């Protein structure tokens, strides 16, 4: 989460005090990303140094007022539309653990998969319970919880797919022929 750009976004609505910025940041992100006081003020100082915000008054602290500059507006507009880097696959610890388990003697890879699935579903139950109680009243919170649930869900789906693929591979190996899923025919007859 870019605290820098979140603060610029809040200032794009009009001039604000340091303390106010911290409170609004927490409210807007559904309190999912807590922020400490020091982080807000050091970030504001850096933004001012870079010419993206201007301050009024000399005294540092919660009562110091800030406003966004034209340069700050341009930086914010460009940041909003810049996709985060999702192109290179992260070195996924979970994938590595399953791949390692696959070749270890005496390890049941399905049991390893289930241990991770258990953990993820339990976590999803906790997020869903939060959504059930709190999300009706808070749009930002509901969006943040949904993002977390979809992320965890995608990992569970990968585990399910891996589980099925490993099971089919073991069957094929035992029976010496592909038995599991039908393959697509090479030639597709087009009905006339």
């Amino acid at each position, binding site marked *: 989460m870019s605290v820098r750009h979140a603060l610029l976004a809040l200032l794009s609505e009009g001039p604000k005090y340091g303390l106010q910025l911290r409170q609004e940041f927490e409210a807007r992100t559904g309190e999912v990303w807590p922020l400490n006081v020091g982080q807000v003020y050091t970030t504001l100082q850096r933004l001012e140094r870079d010419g993206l915000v201007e301050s009024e008054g000399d005294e540092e602290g919660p009562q110091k007022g800030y406003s966004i500059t034209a340069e700050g507006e341009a930086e914010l507009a460009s940041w909003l539309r810049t996709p985060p880097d999702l192109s290179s696959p992260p070195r996924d610890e979970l994938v590595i653990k399953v791949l390692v388990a696959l070749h270890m003697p005496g390890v049941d890879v399905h049991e390893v998969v289930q241990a991770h699935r258990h953990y*993820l579903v*339990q976590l*999803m139950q906790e997020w869903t319970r939060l959504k*059930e*109680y709190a999300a009706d009243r808070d749009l930002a919170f509901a969006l943040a919880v949904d993002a977390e649930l979809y992320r*965890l*869900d995608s990992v569970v789906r990968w585990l*399910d797919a891996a589980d*099925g693929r490993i099971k089919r591979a073991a069957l094929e190996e035992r029976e010496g022929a592909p038995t599991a899923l039908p393959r697509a025919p090479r030639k597709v007859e087009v009905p006339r």
Partner: protein
Amino acid sequence: MTFLEMQHVSKVYGEGAAEVHALRGIELSVDAGQLVAVMGPSGSGKSTLLTIAGSLEEPTSGEVLVDGEPLGAMSPNERARLRRRTIGYVFQDFNLLAGLTAAENVSLPLELDGVPAKPARAAGVQALEELGLGERADRFPDELSGGERQRVAIARAVVGERRLLLADEPSGALDSANGEAVMRLIRAACQRGVAGVVVTHDAQLASWADRVVFLRDGMVVDQTMPPPGPESLLAPIRTP
């Protein structure tokens, strides 16, 4: 209070070389007021588990108890009465009768159980109103959206004194907003004291449950614990 209990339930289809073990030694208990999700891939025995729990099918061995009464000791008539009065079913494809209005679909189980048409119909309309469908009571299923049809099916499953709600992929054909609405209604029914079982392959759906039971090759391999209350969940987030 345990409302549904499955004791060492097994189900075998076919014989000899064609024998298929759909369920093996299932132990499952669901309390009144609790929602349990049974999660597993297709072919894991989820739907068989649900139909046996709902007395739509008999186990090869083992026993199912509903409200302490073993299904195996009941006559076919007694089991039919249990299905009409106590158990509500929700399926992925809604299973509404096309020739009946929403309200008639909902009141049908009551009428089959001998409740006169007028009070049965009133209970049907009331169940629909509780699910926000009061104004659609006179519509036929093909005049309703998928989300509305599933809400009608849930109203039918909870109308009257039903105490066990069994759902097979209840939001499978719905978009995420309608799927969430369906799960909120099922949770609400459980909070009123109904015992609920949802079978699904979908982790987002399962995560609405108090407890998730994992099924694999007809066996329960694992289960989660109920999540803590909302206060303890928010605590670590609020600490700066």
